[in-house]
């Protein structure tokens, strides 16, 4: 085992893994984390604690992760390259591991233009591929990026990365995934899948390259409550593929919430059948309470003992 992570144990045992997103609040209230953690306790193998997502200032992901741990939830700490240089990142990686964090997800990070401080300078000292390699170096080579040794107590982290099968250039997305795997990614969480056909095509390329045998791939899924959410994502979020029939189906639904739930459940079934998919990652944006409901109805509860 590379870490003491529950997520790693579930995946290496060949069980279908479940992770879900837990966004920290835009204030200093620990209760906000504790409340959302309730939906995750015992229901997921890891809860992603986002790192100032969409460049909006929120409670530190590592601080929120420490609160989640105290509630009995295993966090997947997200770390973006936008706000910190290699010195601060390595410092935070040591700090996260010392607080009991066992999973780290490495991302480039949304550009600050989309957040509430568009005037900010961005950092991008290193990129997501380089971050993955840096964390692996700290864990496996027991050394900092500078080459200086870490004397005992190296951070034992299960390393995650993301990929967006719906962004361009489509053919390069698999090549880029291969780079992340080579750099040291242990698991991958994808951008929200709405276009299952395109996702399956991408997975076909992933399997053809044999990457599914080197890395665990969790399909990202977002349950939606209205067709407006889909329309918004289709028009405003770059690199999203949302089929029109899905929008029509939500628009004509008598009970949109139930319909959104049904769509999510159907998608879980569909992605489970795709070769190389090792689990799902739920991103119920602003609708965290639905996580246990979806997992129960999808037959993914109780989570396996590992």
């Amino acid at each position: 085992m590379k870490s003491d992570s529950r997520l790693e144990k579930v995946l290496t045992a060949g069980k279908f893994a479940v992770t879900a997103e837990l966004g920290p609040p835009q204030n200093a209230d620990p209760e906000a984390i504790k409340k959302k953690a309730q939906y995750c306790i015992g229901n997921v193998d890891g809860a992603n604690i986002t790192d100032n997502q969409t460049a909006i200032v929120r409670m530190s992901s590592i601080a929120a992760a420490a609160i989640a741990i105290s509630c009995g939830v295993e966090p997947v700490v997200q770390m973006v390259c936008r706000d910190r240089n290699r010195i601060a990142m390595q410092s935070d990686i040591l700090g996260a591991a010392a607080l009991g964090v066992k999973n780290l997800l490495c991302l480039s990070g949304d550009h600050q233009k989309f957040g509430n401080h568009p005037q900010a300078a961005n950092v991008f000292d290193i990129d997501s591929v380089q971050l993955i390699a840096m964390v692996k170096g700290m864990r496996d080579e027991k050394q900092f990026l500078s080459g200086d040794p870490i004397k005992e107590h190296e951070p034992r982290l299960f390393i995650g990365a993301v990929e967006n099968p719906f962004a361009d250039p489509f053919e390069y997305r698999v090549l880029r995934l291969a780079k992340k795997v080579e750099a040291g990614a242990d698991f991958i969480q994808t951008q929200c899948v709405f276009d299952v056909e395109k996702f399956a095509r991408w997975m076909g390329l992933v399997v053809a390259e044999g990457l599914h045998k080197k890395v665990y791939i969790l399909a990202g899924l977002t349950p939606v409550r209205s067709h407006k959410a889909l329309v918004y994502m289709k028009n405003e979020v770059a690199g999203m593929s949302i089929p029109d029939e899905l929008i029509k189906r939500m628009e004509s639904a008598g009970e949109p919430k139930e319909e959104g739930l049904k769509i999510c459940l159907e998608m879980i079934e569909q992605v489970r059948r795709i070769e190389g998919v090792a689990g799902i990652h739920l991103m119920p944006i602003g609708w965290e309470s639905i996580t246990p409901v979806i997992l129960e109805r999808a037959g993914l509860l109780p989570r396996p003992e590992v």
Partner: protein
Amino acid sequence: MIVADRKPLEEILNSIKDYKKIMLAGCGGCVTICFSGGAKAVELLASQIKMARKKEGRDIEIIECTPERQCEYEFIDEIKKDLESVDAVLSIACGVGVQAMSQRHPDTITIPGLNTKFMGYPIEHALWDERCAGCGDCVLEWTGGICPIARCAKKLLNGPCGGSANGKCEVDKDTDCAWQLIYDRLKKLGKLDNLKKIREPKDWRTSTNAGQRRIKFEEAML
């Protein structure tokens, strides 16, 4: 070339509000090519300033000049005599020219009239795009001649982020995704292998992170 843009007239008027006689100095180099600081720009700005001041009932006297290059002492020495009679220099050279002027003529205040933007070239008439960030460690050899440091909003070295869609950058839908361009170009050249290699973290010491940079050309030293 260095590309610069004129500051808003209001800001310029405010910065010279205390002066009765100024020198308006353009530059015959890059900013002439990008229309913001050449002899014509000097003439236009001078008349705008005079009109605005006349309206306020506070006339201003302006000596107009456009040295061949404001970033070299030999050219700005030519205007030294005129400096004695003015309250300030309003320079519409790039930031380098403004500083050369300030350094060479320290007894006169030099005020910038332009915002210096980037190093680039005109992609069509009257339209300039940034091309080089002066990072000090050129990567164009393996990127198919397209710079991800200057042209990617995240300065990524290992391929496009998840926001690349239809060839455009998520930060600005009018801007091409640099990594889409790099991918297309390398594919055409049969060099996609260049993108398979993991690129190590960049050594930013050659960029602006180590303070002011200097280049010495030993062979030419006197």
